[in-house]
């Protein structure tokens, strides 16, 4: 990549399109999953089951719950630290996808105006509390999903899904899909860049060129699938992909799953935050 590089800031739309930044973030998450920490070495099934249980527990609280959700922060924080994943990056991704939960949640303060909490003289309505609760759940579940993939890798998730009973056809084409996203998204990004460079004042970006643009990409994609299939037959493909089993569900995995799940159950039924609060307010106030 020698030569003069123009800072992207001058032509933000042309140089870094949305598609390229998505591709970059996919690639970066993929890169993170190739690290070699102790957490990365745990059987993907263990991490998958634990994370699913975590999400299930978090969303099982009533809509006005805030304080009991707090201790659950430990799990994503653990994944991020033990998996050596940059927290700032994950945080940015969470903010990026927050609009939907925000848009639905923000109506709660308007429709639910019963005051259910008094702090001194100010009354706080149920709507605000449930809104905060929604955003908190959102941050917890999303950060866990992102951290899970960053410390496991998508190929291993497919492996876990297959070993947990998902049909083989499903797992195999999921692997294909993931592999070819990188190829096709790069191709799409080149097409978008070419269109942008040829377009003046937004002309030529309408539906008239869109149909042929995507249609051509689709035809090339189908041809590519045929070539891939022929290449696979040459290499002895018989409808099965044999996924190498490099993980074992051993004592470490058992400990990981049972340890976290019992912790989640404690967090679910005992209000740790409140106990900590009673302790502190009792000592200092």
């Amino acid at each position, binding site marked *: 990549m020698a030569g003069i590089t123009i800072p992207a800031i001058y032509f933000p739309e042309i140089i870094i399109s949305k*598609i390229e930044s*998505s591709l970059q*973030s*996919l690639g970066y998450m993929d890169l993170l999953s190739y690290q070699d920490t102790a957490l990365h070495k745990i059987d993907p099934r263990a991490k998958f089951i634990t994370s*699913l249980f975590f999400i*299930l527990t978090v*969303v099982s609280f*009533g*809509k*006005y719950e805030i304080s009991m959700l707090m201790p659950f*922060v430990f799990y994503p924080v653990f994944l991020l*630290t033990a998996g050596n994943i940059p927290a700032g990056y994950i945080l940015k*991704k969470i903010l990026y996808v927050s609009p939907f*939960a925000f848009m639905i949640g923000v*109506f709660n303060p308007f429709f639910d105006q019963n005051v*259910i*909490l*008094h*702090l001194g003289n100010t009354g706080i309505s149920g709507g605000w509390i*449930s809104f905060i609760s929604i955003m908190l*759940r959102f941050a917890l*579940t*999303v950060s866990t999903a992102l951290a*899970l*993939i960053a410390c496991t890798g998508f190929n291993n998730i497919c492996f876990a899904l297959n070993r947990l009973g998902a*049909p083989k056809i*499903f797992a195999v*084409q999921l692997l*294909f*899909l*993931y592999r070819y*996203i990188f*190829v*096709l*998204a790069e191709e*799409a990004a080149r097409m978008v860049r070419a269109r942008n460079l040829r377009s003046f004042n*937004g002309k030529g*970006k309408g*539906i008239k060129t*869109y149909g*042929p643009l*995507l*249609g051509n990409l689709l*035809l090339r*994609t*189908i041809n590519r*699938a*045929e070539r*891939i*299939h022929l290449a696979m037959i040459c290499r002895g*493909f018989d*409808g099965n992909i044999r996924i190498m089993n490099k993980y074992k569900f051993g004592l470490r995995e058992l400990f990981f799953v049972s340890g976290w799940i019992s912790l989640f159950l404690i967090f679910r039924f*005992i*209000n740790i*935050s*409140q*106990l*900590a*609060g009673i*302790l502190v307010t009792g000592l200092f106030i």
Partner: protein
Amino acid sequence: MHMADALISPAVGGSMLAVTAGLIGYSSKKLKENLDEKVIPLMGVLGAFIFAGQMINFTIPATGSSGHIGGGMLLSILLGPYAAFITIASVLIIQAFFFADGGLLALGCNIVNMGLFPCFICYTLIYKKIVRGSVDRKKIFIGTTLAVVIGLQMGAFSVVLETIASGISALPFKTFVLLMQPIHLAIGLVEGIATSAIILFIYNAQPELAAGPAGINESVSVFPAKKVFIGLIAGTIIVGGMFSWFASTHPDGLEWSMFKTAGVEELEGPEHGVHSLLGIIQKKTAFLPDYSFRVSENAPKEEGEAVWPSVNAGTSVSGIVGGVLTLLLALLAGFLLKKRKKVAGNN
């Protein structure tokens, strides 16, 4: 319109996941019966195409906004409902994992909303009914656009039903419907026109591709709607019922009985050691089962007052203080561990 984990209850998320798992299993079985192994790479690569295609936009005249394709209908036309359903489910799985669109528990909801309706209902009952016999451009355009629009309306309505059934959002049913349906009518029209533009291009270039599922035995593209839906509805009721019994959003029998057991045990147990500590913990926490803020209606009055004269303010303040404290502690732990790791790495 990706549903988020934060807005659903375990009952809704769990039953939708069960429905999805069942449908994926059923579709895989159907595909396997008539497997042309060519279709597996085709499904994967077309899924990647949808993924890339959704990132290419076109401008909508006079509005300043832009639109893109949906995916479910395009895949159904090219692959038939079963393969299309598996492929769109895969696209949604990747979006959930890498871009946090939706979430892991909401995955079932999203696959039902964006996969089940376009692939199994609108493709078979609308597109197939319109585009049959002698195919021409007008039929393809009307069939595709209409199927996409109706599929999106069903999906949007399903989002509303799932949200209302979960009870986390306070939006009233009517307001939510009036909010969602018109927006998705506009989105549906845009997606429908975009999808038919692509299908029409394919129809001109390689008519055999647009005519029917590529590389798939025709018998696989027929969908026994009635049989499957009876199964689906039964499955939803059973699983939904099971989940809501285990994890209701209201204080349920399980928790109340826990409270009662705890109360009795605390009275009869020894007054020292671990037992008394556990008893205190139980007593301190159990009079607000899990709703630290819904004090007034739920807590048994006399029990609360005996321990805590000003239940409302006191417990709430300690809840807030403790919550913030726990949060800080978790973040601090992560920060310190990270720092230690960095130092170790530098040495």
